[in-house]
């Protein structure tokens, strides 16, 4: 086929090196922080312990935050009730784990992992279903009205928290990790808790899986395009609302997974744990750039690492380290590290 176009050389807006560097900077922040941590801490084995601990914490926060950022990106919905799924996930998952006490207590890694897997599966199924109901009953009537969304989703959060009190009682529940995940392994003189290594592995696997879905599948393309310009996605023939409900369900299920992981990490669960986590989750979503999964991932790792380093170096500063990080990043990039370009 011959070209019907007049002959003119295609031009391409070249990206200057400085801009490319600026784009890569958020990703570079993690190694920079790790190196700074190493220099400040001085002791390699303490540094390694703290780094793994920080990464584990970051991965768990990412698991909880990923759904929230997409829900906001796709439909501009601010869901303050997201924390409820974290709590419900933890209670359902830990209950299942209690039911499988024999497997969880057995000195066999396979049986332990099967028990955790079943607990996670149950937690994700329940929170996914709960997310579906939450979207239909609470979120759907307040599309496009941010103030109402905040009020009504906080209301939903309170109702679900109270339901946890009704079902599981008002007391906190203590637990122990499955047998083979207790304790630590020693690596280069550093004590690395086994469970934290597992948390890092799960978080990383999840992030890679999400990236593959977003890059390689059509549904992933629809979600990415929908975050930028939902109207155009509809004009191409896709029903964004259905995609949004799917994302809401998946995001709620991931929050449930995060709840189980966090419960096992802290070895205690309370109805208010999700609400408490939401502060960190919101910080991560905001500094990452609302709607950006990659941004949330980097933000979560930064928050986890910084909190652990500071708690070791200057315990009194640990409480303000994350708010300080958020302030610094927002002063540098008011839209977050990896802002999603919104078509308006």
């Amino acid at each position, binding site marked *: *086929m*011959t*070209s*019907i*176009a*007049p002959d*003119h050389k*295609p*031009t*391409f*807006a070249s*990206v200057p090196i400085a801009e490319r560097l600026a784009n890569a900077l958020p990703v570079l922040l993690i190694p920079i922080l790790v190196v700074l941590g190493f220099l400040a801490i001085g002791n390699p084995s303490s540094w390694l312990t703290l780094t793994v601990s920080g990464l584990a914490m970051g991965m768990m926060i990412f698991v909880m935050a990923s759904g929230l950022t997409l829900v906001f990106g796709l439909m501009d919905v601010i869901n303050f009730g997201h924390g409820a799924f974290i709590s419900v996930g933890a209670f359902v998952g830990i209950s299942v784990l209690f039911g499988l006490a024999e497997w969880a207590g057995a000195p066999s890694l396979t049986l332990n992992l099967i028990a955790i897997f079943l607990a996670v599966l149950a937690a994700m199924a329940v929170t996914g279903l709960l997310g579906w109901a939450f979207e239909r009953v609470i979120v759907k009537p307040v599309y496009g009205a941010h103030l109402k969304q905040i009020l009504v989703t906080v209301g939903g959060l309170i109702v679900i928290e109270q339901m946890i009190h009704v079902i599981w009682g008002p007391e906190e529940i203590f637990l122990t990790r499955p047998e083979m995940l207790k304790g630590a392994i020693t690596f280069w003189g550093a004590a690395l808790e086994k469970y934290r290594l597992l948390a890092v592995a799960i978080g990383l696997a999840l992030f890679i899986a999400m990236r593959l879905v977003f890059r390689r599948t*059509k549904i992933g*393309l*629809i979600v*990415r*395009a929908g975050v*930028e*310009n939902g*109207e*155009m*996605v*509809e*004009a*191409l*023939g*896709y*029903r*964004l609302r259905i995609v949004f409900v799917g994302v809401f369900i998946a995001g709620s299920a991931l929050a449930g997974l995060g709840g189980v992981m966090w419960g096992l990490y802290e070895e205690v669960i309370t109805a208010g744990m999700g609400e408490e986590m939401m502060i960190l989750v919101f910080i991560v979503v905001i500094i990452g750039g609302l709607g950006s999964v990659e941004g949330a991932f980097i933000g979560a790792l930064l928050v986890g690492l910084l909190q652990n380093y500071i708690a070791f170096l200057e315990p009194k500063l640990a409480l303000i380290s994350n708010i300080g990080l958020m302030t610094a990043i927002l002063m540098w990039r008011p839209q977050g590290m990896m802002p*999603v*370009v919104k*078509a308006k």
Partner: protein
Amino acid sequence: MSDQASDAILKLQNVHTDIAQYHILHGVDLAVERGAVTMLLGRNGVGKTTTLRTIMGLWTAHTGTIHFDTDNITETPTPARARAGIGFVPEDMGIFTDLTVEENMTLAAASGPLSPQRRDWIFSAFPPLKTFWNSEAGNLSGGQKQMLSIARAMAEERKLYLIDEPTKGLAPAIVSTMAAALKELKNQGASILMVEQNFAVAKAIGDYAAVMDDGKIVWSGTMQELATNAALQEQLMGLSMEAAT
């Protein structure tokens, strides 16, 4: 006035559209002929873009009816209108800048993978898209983004194309590429409703014209009729478009 009842693929009758508290369309009556290019003309702010968006379902007509082919689509949601065969090229191009050119095209082919023949046809109309197939669409130049926006509409067989100001803000060389591509689309027998401010392009491509003022169609007829009548242009749009070209 020409007889537009002959074989219209799209028909608007007494369409009123509000955006927030503003009443924008005040009873639009418009017919788009099958297999022809209809130009929607008029000054800025008279409701041309709102008309296209109402046809696409992005704004809702609160009064009046819209018929596409034989179906009444007045209440049909946007995705279903797209699936029924309406391709939309919005004024702001609506490119997904975070996605590559290829990913934009993959999404545009909603009912299945983009066929190789169609892809080659699109490459022949817009060679830069081939060059930058794997680049992020956000890095394309303005003209290339517009090419991608039109190419997306061409990714599948459509019964009707709604194209909003395809040459706006483009360099002359790109305008001629665009005009050539639109002409090619027309020669393939496509039905097109297009908003265009560049009168030379409108004249070269248009078969019919409809002129809007204050949210209504105030004149419709053949492009030839309008193009050859400077007094009519003056009366309808307050300027002689011939002089403007």
